[in-house]
Structure formats: structure tokens, C-alpha cells
């Protein structure tokens, strides 16, 4: 290999922005070339995508409501994942935790919706989703603490268990199956919208779902929790070095289990928001947020404010692509997904070059020695080189798994 990779000491913001802009421009240019080749005007396609078709749309307020429906679960899930990631606990089980949370919320809605007042039902849906999703996540943490199991594998595999549980409920008729529509000859999920549905604040014809406000408040609380509280400090220390944390007298196992519970519980809450807004279950209820959330959290460098912005942008990309695809006969949803993937991939590459740089290998200098020479602080904190590698792997694994799931469907 004539080149090797070296960690950068620092990367000025102007340079970072430049890298991101170059990456996105390259992705868009490739996309434009393909669009032009299939006879679609790239400019009008991109305009449609970036504006989510809201320009000249007679129900633009509706488009914005739908955009927020994509945004809310994504930002909450990403924030939740950042809790675990800060501790270097690679929770890529967001999908499974989201599904278990949705099932719990829907169960509460069907069971108690008809007898309890609506606000209480909604509250209980949140509690149910938070507890079930939290437990589904934190027992992996308990296994890791007790037996040193690999959380990446376990959370990943639990995703599929949860997915097949919800598919089982979707396809199995029976009196016990309260999730189904009793009036349909074919098995379809039933609606509980009349019992439990998140209220909205009307602004003109636009309705601001109350979950959006809750989400903003939760993000602020999460930010304060991570930056300003003892718990937040403990998470940071465990993330930097579990041994230092132990040396400082922290109960590392307890911190891990507690934080992973919070992470999974918050994903459960996102599920309760989503289910309570839709008023019905679906086997595609997650909208892939468990996967996308990994990418969002990582692009945002696990900062809560950053996650808010990245989620907003990725939601535009996500929702805008679908809308733009509907306008052009030659562009189907698969093409829109491919373009989305290209842009995300380009941004990840830019992110890589903000952290690392390629250096021509002079002679037979061992790469490891070079890393140490260039980044002396790496020696002090043993886990530092892993910081970039493992999450990049996790993000990749998540992206691949996400693709597999969408391919299956």
C-alpha cells in the first residue's frame, strides 16, 4: 500500500464545511448525470426534493405535517442512541426497541382506550412503551455487564426477533389478537385512533402535533442531562475509559445498565409518539429510524444540537426524495433511495476525511508507529484509536442491515 491513514489532530470548521460541501456536490453531480441520462431534468428534480414539493402545493401544510411525522421519531431515536454511543455501548437495536415500544403502546391503546379517558390512555401508552422498550434494551446491557457478551451482535439480532413478533401479530388471526381489525376477513391491523390520538395545535390550516413540542423539550432535557448532570459526566467517563471510571469509584455496571435503559426507553417513547399519531400499527412502523438514527448520531458527533440539525436535514432528504419521485415517471422509489444512499455515503466519506488524512507511506514505517507519532494523546487514552473505527463499523453494519431489511420487503 502506497498510502496509509493518519488521525488528524484537529480539523478547522471551515475545512470541515468545505469537505461536506464537496462531498454533497459530488453525490449530486453523479445523481444529476444519471437523472439526465434517464431524461429527467436534474435541477427540477433537486428543487422538488429540497422543497419537499411544497412549492405550488395546495396542501403544503399537509406536506409539512408529514415531514414532521418523519422527523420526530428520527430525532428522538438518534438522541436516544447517542446516550449509549457516548458510553461506547453500540446499541444498534433501535429497530427492535422501537417495535417493542409500538406493540406495548398499541396494546395499552386497545386494552384501556375504550374505558379510560384519552389523556390517561396516552400517558399509559408512553409508560408501557418506555418500560417494554427499556427492558428489551437493557437486558442486553445486563448480559454485557455480567458475562461480557457482545452488545452489537445481541442488539442486532434482537431487531429481527422483534420484527418477526410484529409480523406474527400482523398475520395471525385469533380472538386473542387484539391488534387486528375484527371486521376484516383478511388479517389487517385495527385502528385505535378514536380512543387515543395525540392532539394538535391548529395554526391556520396547519396542525402542530403536540409530540413535536414534547420532542423539542426532551432534546433540551437530554442535552442538559448529558452536559450538566452527574449522570452525564459518568457516561462521559465510562465512555472514555471504564478503568478510569472504576478507579474513580464509579459503579460502571450500574451506569451502563441505567444508561442503556434510558436509551432504549427513549426509543420506546419515540414509538409511542409514532403509534399514537398514526392510530394503527404496521410492520413498517419504524420507518428504519433504528438504522438511520445510527448514521444521524454519528454524523452529529453525538451532540444533541447536532442531532437535531442532522435529523432535520436527513428527514428532508428522506421525505423529499419520495415526493420528487412521484413527479417524474422515470424515477421510482428505488432510484430515490439510491440517491439518498449516495448522498449519505458521500457525507460519511467527508466525515472520514475530517478525522483522518491519507499520507504517502515513505518507506517501511509501520502504520501503528505513525499513528502514535501523529497523535500522542492516543497513547494516554487506550480506547482512543477505537473511537473512530468501531462506530464506523457499527454505522456500516447498520446501513447494511437496513438495506437488507428494505430489500426483503
Amino acid at each position, binding site marked *: 500500500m502506497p498510502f496509509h491513514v493518519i488521525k488528524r489532530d484537529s480539523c478547522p470548521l471551515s475545512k470541515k464545511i468545505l469537505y461536506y460541501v464537496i462531498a454533497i456536490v459530488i453525490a449530486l453531480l453523479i445523481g444529476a448525470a444519471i437523472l439526465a441520462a434517464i431524461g429527467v431534468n436534474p435541477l427540477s428534480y433537486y428543487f422538488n426534493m429540497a422543497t419537499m414539493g411544497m412549492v405550488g402545493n395546495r396542501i403544503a401544510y*399537509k406536506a*409539512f405535517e408529514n415531514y414532521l411525522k418523519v422527523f420526530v421519531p428520527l430525532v428522538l431515536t438518534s438522541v436516544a442512541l447517542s446516550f449509549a454511543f457516548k458510553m461506547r455501548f453500540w446499541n444498534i437495536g433501535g429497530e427492535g426497541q422501537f417495535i417493542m415500544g409500538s406493540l406495548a403502546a398499541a396494546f395499552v391503546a386497545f386494552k384501556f382506550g375504550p374505558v379510560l379517558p384519552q389523556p390517561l390512555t396516552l400517558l399509559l401508552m408512553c409508560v408501557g412503551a418506555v418500560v417494554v422498550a427499556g427492558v428489551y434494551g437493557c437486558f442486553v446491557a445486563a448480559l454485557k455487564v455480567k458475562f461480557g457478551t457482545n452488545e452489537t451482535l445481541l442488539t442486532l439480532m434482537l431487531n429481527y426477533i422483534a420484527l418477526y413478533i410484529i409480523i406474527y401479530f400482523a398475520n395471525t388471526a385469533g380472538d386473542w389478537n387484539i391488534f387486528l381489525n375484527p371486521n376484516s376477513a383478511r388479517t*389487517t391491523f385495527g385502528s385505535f385512533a378514536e380512543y387515543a390520538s395525540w392532539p394538535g395545535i391548529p395554526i391556520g390550516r396547519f396542525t402542530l402535533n403536540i409530540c413535536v413540542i414534547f420532542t423539542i423539550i426532551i432534546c433540551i432535557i437530554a442535552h442538559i442531562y448529558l452536559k450538566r448532570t452527574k449522570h452525564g459526566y459518568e457516561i462521559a467517563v465510562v465512555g472514555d475509559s471504564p478503568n478510569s471510571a472504576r478507579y474513580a469509584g464509579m459503579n460502571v455496571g450500574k451506569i451502563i445498565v441505567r444508561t442503556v435503559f434510558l436509551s432504549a426507553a427513549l426509543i420506546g417513547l419515540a414509538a409511542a409518539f409514532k403509534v399514537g399519531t398514526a392510530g394503527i400499527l404496521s410492520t413498517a412502523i419504524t420507518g428504519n429510524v433504528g438504522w438511520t438514527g445510527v448514521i444521524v448520531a454519528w454524523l452529529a458527533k453525538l451532540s444533541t*444540537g447536532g442531532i437535531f440539525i442532522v435529523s*432535520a436535514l436527513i428527514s428532508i432528504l428522506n421525505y423529499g426524495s419520495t415526493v420528487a*419521485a*412521484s413527479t417524474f415517471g422515470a424515477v421510482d422509489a428505488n432510484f430515490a433511495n439510491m440517491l439518498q444512499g449516495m448522498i449519505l455515503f458521500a457525507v460519511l466519506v467527508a466525515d472520514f476525511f475530517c478525522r483522518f488524512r491519507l499520507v504517502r507511506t515513505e518507506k517501511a514505517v509501520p502504520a501503528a508507529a505513525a499513528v502514535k507519532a501523529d497523535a500522542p494523546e492516543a497513547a494516554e487514552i487506550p480506547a482512543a484509536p477505537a473511537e473512530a473505527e468501531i462506530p464506523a463499523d457499527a454505522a456500516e453494519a447498520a446501513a447494511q442491515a437496513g438495506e437488507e431489511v428494505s430489500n426483503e*420487503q
Partner: protein
Amino acid sequence: MKKRILALLLSCAMVVGLAACGGGSSDNGGGAADNGSAPAPAAEDAESAGEAGSTDLADLTVGAIYINGKNDTAGYTYQHSNGIITAMRNLGMDVDSQLYVVDYVEEDYDAVCQAIDTLVGEGCDIIFGISFGYLDAFNDKAAEYPDVIFSHGTGYLCNDTNFNNYFGRAYQARYLAGIVAGLKSLEEGNNNIGYVAAFGTEYAETASGINGFAMGVRAVNPDATIYVKELGAWGDEPNEYAFAEELINSYNCCVISQHCDSAQAMIAAADAGVYGCGYNSDMTEDAPTAVLTSAVWHWDVYYQTAIEAAAACGGDASQFVTQMGGPAYYAGLAEGFVGYAPLNEAIAPANAQAYLDAVSDLIISGEWDVFSGTALSFEEAEDGTVTVVQTPADLVDNEGNVIVEAGGPSVEDSVITGTMDWFVEGVQDVAG
């Protein structure tokens, strides 16, 4: 610090965005108080109604929601997409500018609602949905957007104004294909007939196809048995081939019929040197040495009727159901919505056309329907003339339950409502 400023900017942008949405819509709608009657479109209605009473087809925008891709080249979505495009071209419409499609939409209430919002936002006047599981979303959205026409395929929900459903009597075409298969089995002296089906009794769509076909077979060959093997999926090419192969090898079937997306079952029949009856489109080209005929859909027949009715509404979507003559379009052989592909002369049983003509006439005239308490039998004269004999007989399922008493009316509705969850006698379900 910089991040905080960014966050602040973003939230400001969102607030401005909200204000703009709210403001813009109240400008269009002339205030929130009277938006129940959707004033803006109403004004257009008055204009167009004043001019002609019907919308020019060039001003009509069509929307569609597909379960698979709009660029598919075979299969269920392709059949619909092709039908809509053919209908629009026949009507002189420009597909590129007048058709909006959201594809790969799963049977997920929220996703369908979102797709409908997108199409309504694009200004679609009529929106078609092709998959059964879209029905609740279509039902709710039809109430939310009374100025847009909604048309849902394979479902049963509807209203009296802007929302109808449509489906075809494919079982009539199946019955005719069954007659051809039955005649072939007599010629071959082999009473075993195979059927590769996506599903069995859990979908009325598949059950009615199997039953229609089986009754056609047994009208000419009462000793025949129809062995059904279920895929558990609408499309599964390797198994479509393998299941057909198994029916031929293990059950000694001499004719294979199918209800699945590709022509693999027909190709398997050709490879094994037996015969087949295709489905969806004419499959003769795929397996010229095997396919006797195919039961086919002509979706463009419906789409053209519906688009013309939408135009005739003159912008008043509530007139759609009236223009269509009712909320459920359930057409068959008589309207040309379903039919059979031309017989493959080289291998088709002798005189099959005479049988098909005689039964077609009977169905088209409305005198007789497949799922009634009247059974058909045939008398073939020396000169090849075929006479149909109608005999009152119980319609019995394969467990011996009487579905329709002798002479009773057809239970054709059960195909749409999804209550046809039985196999007619002569059908044998082979574990998959």
C-alpha cells in the same frame, strides 16, 4: 456556541416555515372559518361548469399508488401501470405531465395516507390505489378531501360521492380457461390437473380463481382433480417453477394452471412436455409449446372508464360515483375487463373454440354465472356444434358443505367481500 446559534436559526426557520404555511393556506382558503367547503376548488368548479360541464381531459391529473415499482416490466403493478398508461394514451392524455405515481407503498395505513397527501398536493383529480390493504386509508382520505376522486382496486369500501372500488370477475375468464384444460385432459386421458397458486383460501382472490378454473375443468371432465400447491407469496420465481415441476412429476398432472406473478409455471410445463393455462397476460410467448390459453386482465378498460367519468364530473368530485353508475365497479367478460388469450392453435384441444364461444355468450348475456346453483354440461354434435345444457345442482365445497342450493343465485359477491374462503369440490390442496 456556534452549534447553539445554528439550532436557534433552525428553530427560527421552522417557526417562519409554519407561519408561512398557515398564512399561505388562509390566503388560498379565504380564512379558516369557511374552509370546510374548500372554496378555491369550488370557484374553479363554477368556472368549468359554466363553460362545458365537463373537464377537458388535458386538464385532468391522475395519481396512482403502487405496491411495487412503476418501472416494473412484469407482474401485478406492471399490469395496472400498463393499464393506466394505455388508458391515458387512448384518451390522448400526456402521461409524462398528467400522471403522478407514488410506488413501493406497503399496506401500511400511515404510508398510504402520506402517499395520498403527496398526490393531492401535486393536484391530482383522481387517485387510484391498487392494493387491498390500502382500503382504510382510502376510505378516510376520501372523507378528508371531498374535492378529489378516490378509486380503490380489489377492496370493498366506498361512499356515495367521491370514492368507489373496482375489481374484475377474473373467475369468469378462469372458468373458460378451465374448460380448455378439461378438454385437454380428456384428450390426454389423464384426469390430474395442477395449479400453482400464490395463496389458497385465505384470499378470496386466489380462492375464486381456483374455484372458477376447477368448475370449468369439471364441466367438461367431471372426473378431474385439481391439485393446488400454494407459494405463500404473490411472486417467487424459483418455487413457481419447482412447484409446477412437482405437480407434474409427483401428481402426474397433464395441465398446469397458475396464479402467480411470472410465467415460470408455464415454462416448467413446457420443459416437462405437458400443457398449461397462463394468467394475467398472454403467456404464449413465454412457453409456446405448453400454453393453451391464458386468463387475462384488461385493466385499461376500467381505467379508461374511470378517467372519462372523472372528466365528466366537471370538477365536482362528488358526482363521480353517480357518473360511474354506482360505487362498486365489478366488471367481467361482458365489459371486456377480463378475457382469454387467443387459443394456441397448434396444441389447443379440437373444437375448444366452440365451447368457449357458447359459454362466453351465456356469461355475457348475464343469463348464467359461475358461482350459481346451476351447473353446465355440454353436448357436442357430429358437425362440431356445441350445445350448453343447464342443470340445477348444489354448489358444494370440497368438504361437502352446500354453498349454494340447486337453482340458487350466484355468490359472486363473496369474491369482493373476501368471504369466499372455501374450495369447490374436485380441488385438492397439496401441502406446500
